[in-house]
Structures are given as structure tokens and as C-alpha cells.
């Protein structure tokens, strides 16, 4: 398999490129308006809202028809996407009879024809189904994290309440979808774990257990350092989406004030209190203000099972962040917040500097402070561990990658190939301009490597990848 050479080159001066964009996004339930004339009732949410009613109904009807039609060929797996020249539609049925549809416009290249008229060319093959299907699934997971299931909203307040919740959530959330920078990492939805030695890890365990004991209303705790996960008391699937929220939304929002050094006061003014750098990322901003509001985001976890509603308290000291989750039936008071601050703050401050120190020692010992020569993405389906040397940093707006989008697309293609078979596999692709892309799948793990070596041949590339595995993955069972 080889990628088509990228079109960016000559003639670029006359070309304009438009990235993929969100055309529409809607949620419907066919059961809500089965009779003619009542079709509008099916629609629970529609973006953009300005679209004329009949067009909404038509578009929903079309999706319904496609899903129904394709179901006859594959009853258990109905259609997931529809490819057209101008756009792609993605379908998802996260709860029975509730359908979410996302329509994405294909990327466009606008060329100047000889007579000076612009000619629009849709790039039909650019978007990867798996990437955008995953984005759509993520939309649901994120909604569910903060609102619970569709069904629960229906039980609590009927269609009216569900519509309100959908409107309130997606109105803002859709603006944060950055479809142009979605890639393989969106498929994985992985978690980056912070590498740590055993002793420091045990200290963190000890800290968490003590905090849960002293703050007895805390039900679950998660611990992160440098935006990487160290401990999750939540189950994996819930942590996965919470992690996504923390790292792409909550933490980035607080980066700027941190850099300015405004929000990390040393609380020397509080008598008898140890100096510490702890502060709330959710909840009260100023504990000394008696009027401070102790409102925390509500989240819903274990929705398949125990269906728990929780308050999410995120507290941070230096680079260490702790999420305390308490039962939503308990309303945290300002007193509780002050107590939390006085107990957690000093200990977390010490722990954060311990982690930092230990991390630097380990880094020096393993010699891994040298820049990695390899660009790679690793993902383990079993624990969702993800590691990328391709992505520089996640920000709320874009995920910056250090490689050409075409290479990213090859990675996505290889991933699609892996999904089709259960067996272990290895795929080596020669891409344009001296790049080699290698994909390896061993049991539940996937590794993608991008090599840039002049005049390298297949054997040399294979050797390079072996070397990488031996240095980076020698402590796991990863077949060569």
C-alpha cells in the first residue's frame, strides 16, 4: 500500500484549501413521530438551528431511510457512514432508537481555472471513517458524562427535559470540535500514563487512601501529573472520557493564569496553615470569600450499572491534579472546601515536588532525556495506554502534530487494516519523500512508526523498528 503523493507542491499559489467542516449535527428518535405530519417530533436536537423545518425533517428522514435500508443487509451492524461527493454522514445509535448524525463536509481544493473562474474540487477520499465515527461516539460519551443517558432524561422530565439538556450541552460543545485536526488518536481515545517508579507510586496510593479516609464523602479519586494519568478509582470507560475532558478542556483553560503566576497563591496569610500551592480548578475560586459559591460540575458514571451522579472536585497543586468525586446527593459546603484545602493542599504540594524530583532522577538514570529519534504512536487496547512522540501538545483548539497530514492519514489507513483482522500483523509503507511508515499489531497493542531515512531499504527499516521495540518496549510482550 502506498500513499498518493501529496498535491501540495507546484501550482499551490493558485490553490486554496479548505479543511473538513461540520455541516450539521442532529439527534432524533424515530419512535417519537411515527405518523405522517408528526415527523418534527422525532427531532430532539438540530444544528444549525436556523435550518428550515422541512429541510430538517427531510434530512432526518433520509438518514432514517438509509439506516433502515442497510439494516436489511446487515441486521446487527447497520450503516455507520454514508459517502457522497460533497460530504460524509456518520450515524451512531448510542441508546436504543436514539440516533446521532454528524455531517462533515469533505475538504475542498479551490483552483483557478484558465478563464479565471474558481473550480471547486471535493476530496472525497480524505476523511477516515473510523476517525469521525469515533468523534461522534465521543460526543455522546461527553454528553453522557455531564448529563447522564438520554433515557434517564426522558424518565426525569420527558422529551422537554431531554431537548433542553441536548440544546444546552451541544450548543457549546459542537464549537469545540475541531474536525480538521482529528486523527488516529481520536480513534484510540487513549490515556497517557505518567511514568513513575514504584515507590513514588505507592506514596501516591497512600496519599489517596488517606484523603479518602479523612474526607469520607469522597467516593472516587483520580490522580494526574503533567496532564497524565497516574491513578483512577473510576472504571476505565468513565475515566477515558473524564480524562478527555480534563486534558482537552479543563486543564488548558487554567494554563494561562498559571503561566502568569496569578492563580497560585502561597497561602501565608492563613494562620496555622502550612504554605501550599493547592487551589480548586472547579468550585470556589476564593476560599476567604464567605459568599464563594461551592458549585461543582455534576458527572454521571457507571451508567450501565449503578448509575451514579457525582460532584467533580478538581484540585491542583503545581503539576499534580486530584479529582475527588463525591455523591451528588451531598452538597459540598464552603466549610468542606476549606477543610479539603487545608488537608489536601499541603500534602499535595509536597507530593507534587516529590514526583517532580523522582521523575527527573529516573529520567537521568534511564538516559531518556535525549530526544527520541523516532516518531511513533503506541496504543494498548487493554489499558488504553497511549504514547505519542508525534503530537506535541494538546490544546483546546488544535492537536499539533509534527508530521505531514498525509502521513497521519497513512497511519489511519493502517489502523483500518488492523481492525479488519484479528491476527497479529505488520505493515510497512513507503511514503513520499524518503518516509517509511511501519505499523505493528501484537495481541492488543498497536505501534506506528514514522521513519525518515534517505535511501533506506525494507530490511534496514525493519531493523530500525526492531531497535525501537528493544529500547522502548522491552518490558512487555511485544512480538518482533
Amino acid at each position, binding site marked *: 500500500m502506498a500513499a498518493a503523493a501529496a498535491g501540495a507542491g507546484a501550482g499551490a499559489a493558485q490553490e486554496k484549501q479548505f479543511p473538513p467542516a461540520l455541516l450539521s449535527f442532529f439527534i432524533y428518535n424515530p419512535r417519537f413521530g411515527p405518523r405522517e405530519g408528526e415527523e418534527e417530533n422525532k427531532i430532539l436536537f438540530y444544528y444549525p438551528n436556523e435550518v428550515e423545518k422541512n429541510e430538517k425533517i427531510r434530512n432526518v428522514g433520509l438518514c432514517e431511510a438509509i439506516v433502515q435500508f442497510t439494516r436489511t443487509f446487515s441486521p446487527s451492524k447497520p450503516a455507520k457512514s454514508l459517502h457522497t461527493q460533497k460530504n460524509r454522514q456518520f450515524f451512531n445509535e448510542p441508546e436504543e432508537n436514539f440516533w446521532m448524525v454528524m455531517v462533515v463536509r469533505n475538504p475542498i481544493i479551490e483552483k483557478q481555472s484558465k478563464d479565471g473562474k474558481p473550480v471547486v474540487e471535493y476530496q472525497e477520499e480524505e476523511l477516515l471513517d473510523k476517525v469521525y465515527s469515533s468523534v461522534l461516539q465521543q460526543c455522546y460519551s461527553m454528553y453522557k458524562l455531564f448529563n447522564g443517558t438520554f433515557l434517564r432524561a426522558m424518565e426525569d422530565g420527558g422529551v422537554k427535559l431531554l431537548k433542553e439538556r441536548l440544546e444546552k450541552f451541544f450548543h457549546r460543545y459542537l464549537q469545540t470540535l475541531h474536525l480538521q485536526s482529528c486523527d488516529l488518536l481520536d480513534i484510540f481515545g487513549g490515556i497517557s500514563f505518567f511514568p513513575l517508579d514504584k515507590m513514588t507510586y505507592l506514596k501516591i496510593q497512600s496519599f489517596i487512601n488517606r484523603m479518602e479516609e479523612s474526607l469520607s464523602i469522597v467516593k472516587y479519586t483520580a490522580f494526574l501529573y503533567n496532564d497524565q494519568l497516574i491513578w*483512577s478509582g473510576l472504571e476505565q470507560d468513565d475515566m477515558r472520557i473524564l480524562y478527555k475532558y480534563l486534558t482537552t478542556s479543563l486543564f488548558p483553560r487554567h494554563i494561562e493564569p498559571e503561566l502568569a503566576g496569578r492563580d497560585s497563591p502561597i497561602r501565608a496569610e492563613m494562620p496555622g496553615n502550612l504554605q501550599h500551592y493547592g487551589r480548586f480548578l472547579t468550585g470556589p475560586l476564593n476560599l476567604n470569600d464567605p459568599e464563594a459559591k461551592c458549585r461543582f460540575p455534576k458527572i454521571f458514571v457507571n451508567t450501565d450499572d449503578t448509575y451514579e451522579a457525582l460532584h467533580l472536585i478538581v484540585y491542583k497543586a503545581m503539576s499534580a491534579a486530584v479529582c475527588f468525586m463525591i455523591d451528588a446527593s451531598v452538597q459540598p459546603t464552603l466549610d468542606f472546601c476549606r477543610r479539603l484545602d487545608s488537608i489536601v493542599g499541603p500534602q499535595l504540594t509536597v507530593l507534587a515536588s516529590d514526583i517532580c524530583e523522582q521523575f527527573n532522577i529516573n529520567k537521568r538514570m534511564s538516559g531518556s532525556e535525549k530526544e527520541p529519534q523516532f516518531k511513533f504512536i503506541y496504543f494498548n487496547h487493554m489499558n488504553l495506554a497511549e504514547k505519542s512522540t508525534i503530537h506535541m501538545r494538546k490544546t483546546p483548539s488544535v492537536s499539533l502534530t509534527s508530521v505531514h497530514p498525509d502521513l497521519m492519514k497513512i497511519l489511519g489507513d493502517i489502523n483500518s487494516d488492523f481492525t479488519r483482522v484479528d491476527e497479529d500483523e505488520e505493515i510497512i509503507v513507503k511514503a513520499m519523500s524518503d518516509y517509511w511508515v511501519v505499523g505493528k499489531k501484537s495481541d492488543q497493542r498497536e505501534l506506528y512508526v514514522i521513519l525518515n531515512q534517505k535511501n533506506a531499504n525494507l530490511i534496514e527499516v525493519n531493523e530500525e523498528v526492531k531497535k525501537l521495540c528493544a529500547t522502548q518496549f522491552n518490558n512487555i510482550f511485544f512480538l518482533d
Partner: protein
Amino acid sequence: MGQEDYYLELCDRPVHFEKANPVNCVFFDEANKQVFAVRSGGATGVVVKGPDDRNPISFRMEDKGEVKCIKFSLENKILAVQRTSKTVVLPEKRNLKLLKSQNINVNWYMYCPEGAVILLSTTVLGNVLQPFYFRAGTMSKLPKFEIELPAAPKSTKLSLSERDIAMATIYGQLYVLFLRHHSRTSNSTGAEVVLYHLPREGACKKMHILKLNRTGKFALNVVDNLVVVHHQDTETSVIFDIKLRGEFDGTVTFHHPVLPARSIQPYQIPVAGPAPVTSQSPIPCKLYSSSWIVFQPDIIISASQGYLWNLQVKLQPIVNLLPDKGRLMDFLLQRKECKMVILSVCSQMLSESDRATLPVIATVFDKLNHEYKKYLDAEQSYTTAVEAGPSRCSPLLKRPVRTQAVVDQSDMYTHVLSVFTEKKEMPHKFVIAVLMEYIRSLNQFQITVQHYLHELVIKTLVQHNLFYMLHQFLQYHVLSDSKPLACLLLSLESFYPPAHQLSLDMLKRLSTANDEIVEVLLSKHQVLAALRFIRGIGGHDNISARKFLDAAKQTEDNMLFYTIFRFFEQRNQRLRGNPNFTPGEHCEEHVAFFKQVFGDQALMRPTTF
């Protein structure tokens, strides 16, 4: 005050002797710890009993007047009797040799048999003490030292009485204990015991002051390295432990009683006479009686009742008297018979009703493991020294003694943790937190954690379906790699599929479990993966062809079978120059199957060079 409250007791089996009366004189020899009952100056009999003597020694001797003192030499070889203040009679004729003489004006003397040190009280006030140390037939003079008297004495008469001085070995060091009575002139709140450390070399130094906070008549014992101070007025005793943290003022450390004052446990004197005759109940013994005489280190004698007791410390009641668990552990770890009490404290602090907080539990674990690690290190350096060979082996090298304070992982597992994890009423969060805290503590002291502790963690997590937690622990290698653990994980695969991956990873890291990895893969019908793995580590020349062909056949995937078969044909060719299998490989069945499916012509042809 409940029965459980007494922390001091008199021993069950006292030495019983005929009580002192006008015709029976009683003597006690501190060196041999023997009681002498001398009837009528010895004419009607002398009975000698020691605490360990099953058979008392009895004999008669001529009554040559009042006996002032009577003693045996070591091993009861020579008897010495003193009848006047200036003569000592040895009943058998012996030669005595004067080895050394010192000319000192002595007010009184005191001898400590354990330390082989004699103290002489000199000067007019008597408060300058001159110690001599006896060793191997020589006597060495140690530096003299002055006992600070409570207030500047007005007169020039003897101010330091031998009654207020004792000598005892505490934590292996000889101390001179001085009971400094409360003086009205000083503003101290009560009497004190001042401990002077008397080293074999160097000067005697004032080290500890035990604050009694009361006045009156006191007596001292030393039991299990504790200083016991009896107070007659209140009929109670207190104990001090100089190893517990006190207040250090730069030169001396001030200590307060470890526990509130308590009486010695009430004692019943068994009624004499043959058992069937004695119908009356035992008589309660009068404690703190004025007829009691106290000797070092732990002896109490009631001459009027005819008993010699050893004083003992009861540890169990102390558990409830010392609420600070950290201090309690510090205290218990220094006691001789502490192990079962320590384990019971651990069990208690994990029980539903008396549950301690995690920081307290952590402190206790840390204290136990500190002691455990000290022993492991001593053991390690001993082993290293022994291995270094006898030439370098110093004669002083002794195998470290494992005291009861060494509470190892197996003790904790058997007596505390396995029982604790079985308790259904315990919240699992607490159970896991405790296990992790123990593992944290072991790691902190760099003690290798035994796999049964890890198994306990896994068992608990599995019981509560907390597989994701388990996964995270393994991910950070908190549960150390071992074959038993890897096998345990394999067995969990049906409940939690990722356990398979975790187990394989662990086997890989062990690097001594390659055979196991092959077995695991073959059992999952991953024949090609198994072969690739074994080839990757260069072991493919030694594997059994039959095993792989069997597994390949079981998959019912003919192409896979073909691949595996061809691999081994090539191996045969490479190793023996012929692709055929030897009879010893027992692959006839597979060759036949191969021919049946792919035909004879598909077999590899031997190549000849």
C-alpha cells in the same frame, strides 16, 4: 480498676523459704540469687534455694555464734560465712591469695554481679563513688565520679546512703541509679531517679532523669530493660523506658512514666499443706509491705512471709493503657516477649470496633519494618562476612540474634493480614488501603515483598471485581513479577481478559519463563506467535517439533499446519542436512497428515551438496 489493668506481676513460682523469725535468719546472695535460711546459727540446718534450683541444698554447721552473712561461691563450690565484722570463715580450709590492694576510705560498697563492678562510697559526704571493674582475675580502677546531691548539705556527715543507689544493666549498658529525694529547698515537684551511665572505658556520665512527681519511700527494680519505681505510700508502681523519646535539654534526657501508676497485680499466697487437706481459700498477699526487700534487677523478697519473687511486666494490659499507637510500638518493640502482643495490636487496630486511621497504621507498619530491616541487614552482612572466608572472619563475628521484635511478612500474613482480609464486614476500600500501606512500608525499607502478599491484594481486588485497579497496580509494577503471580493472572483471564496480556508481559520480564510463554501461546492456539517468539530469543533449534505440529493441527487451519511443518523441515535440513524427521521426534503421524492433505510431492526434497 479491671483485672486487665495491672501491668506488673509477681512470678507464679516464687522461691519459698522458711520465714524469718528469732531462730531462723534469712540471707540473700545477689550474685547467685540464693536465699539462705539459717536455723539456730546453722546447728539445726541451713537451707539454700535459688530461683532455678529444683533441689534446695541443705546442710548443717556448728553454731559458732550469730551469722552476719553467708554465701556460696559460683557453682556452689565454696561456702563463706561471716560472723564478725572483720572475719570471713570458709568452712573448708582453702588458700586465699591477695591479688591487689587499694587503700581507700570507704563508707559503704555495692557490688553488681552482672556488671562485675564494685562501687565504693568515698569522701565524708559519701557522694564520690569509686568504681572497680573485675575481669579475668584482674581489677581495674574506673574513673571516680560524683553524685550530685539534691541540696548543698549543711553538715559534713554522710549524705549519700547506699539505700538510694542501685546498679543495673539497661539495654546492655551498666547504669548507676540514684534515687534523689525531693528536697524542700529545690523547686522540683518530686523525687527523681538519676541514671549515670558507667561505661567500661571512659568517664561516668549523667544521662537520664526519671521524673517521679511524688515523694515518699521508693524502691527500684529493672525488668526487661524497664526501670520500675515502687512507691510505698500509694502502693503503686510506675515504669520508665529510657529508649522512648523524652525531653532532651542538651545534656540529659527527662522521662515521664510510660503509663499511669498501677499496683502490682494482687497476689494470692497458696496455702501450704497437701492439696486434699487445704480447703480454705488462698490468702491475699500484702503488697508493698514494709517487710519487702528489693534487690536488683528484678527481685522482691518478703522475709516475713518467706517468699522470693521475680517481678514481671505484663504487656497485654499495656496495649489499652497507651493510646498513642506509635509510642506503644516503640515500647513493645523493646520488650522480650513482644511478638504476639504486637501482632494482637496490629489485629486490633484493623478491627471494626478499634479501627485506627491510615496514618497511624502506616506509622505502626513503618516501625515494625524498620526493626525487620535492621535484622535483615545484620543477617546480610553476617552472611557476606562468612562467605568472605574464615581468614577475614573476625572472632567477634556472631550470627545476629533474631529477637521477638522482628515481625516479618510471614508473621503479618499469618496472624494479621490473612485474617483481616477474610472479614466480610470490612469495607474493601479499607482492606486494600491497609494492604497497600503495608506494601508501601516494605518497599520504603527496601524489603522484597513476598508473593503471598501480592496474591492477597489480587484476591481481594478480584473478590470485589476491581479488575481495573488491579490492572493499574500491575502497570506500575507495584505487584512484583513472579511466576506464581503470572500463573494466578492467567487463571483470571476468563473473568478479566486483559489478565492474559498482563501475565505474558510478566513472564517476558522474568526472562526465565520462556517455556511458559510458549505453553501459554500454544494453549491459545497462537502457534505462529509461539514460534516467532522462540525464534526471536534463539531457542528454535531446541524445541519439540511434535509439540508445535500438534498445536498447529488442532487449529484445523491447514495453511498454518503447512507453514509450521515447512519450518521444521527447514530446521531439519539446516541441522542435519536432511529435511526428514528422525524417529525420535515422533512426528510420523504429522508427516502422514501432511502427505494426505498436500500430497507426497509437497514434502521438501533433501538437498545434497
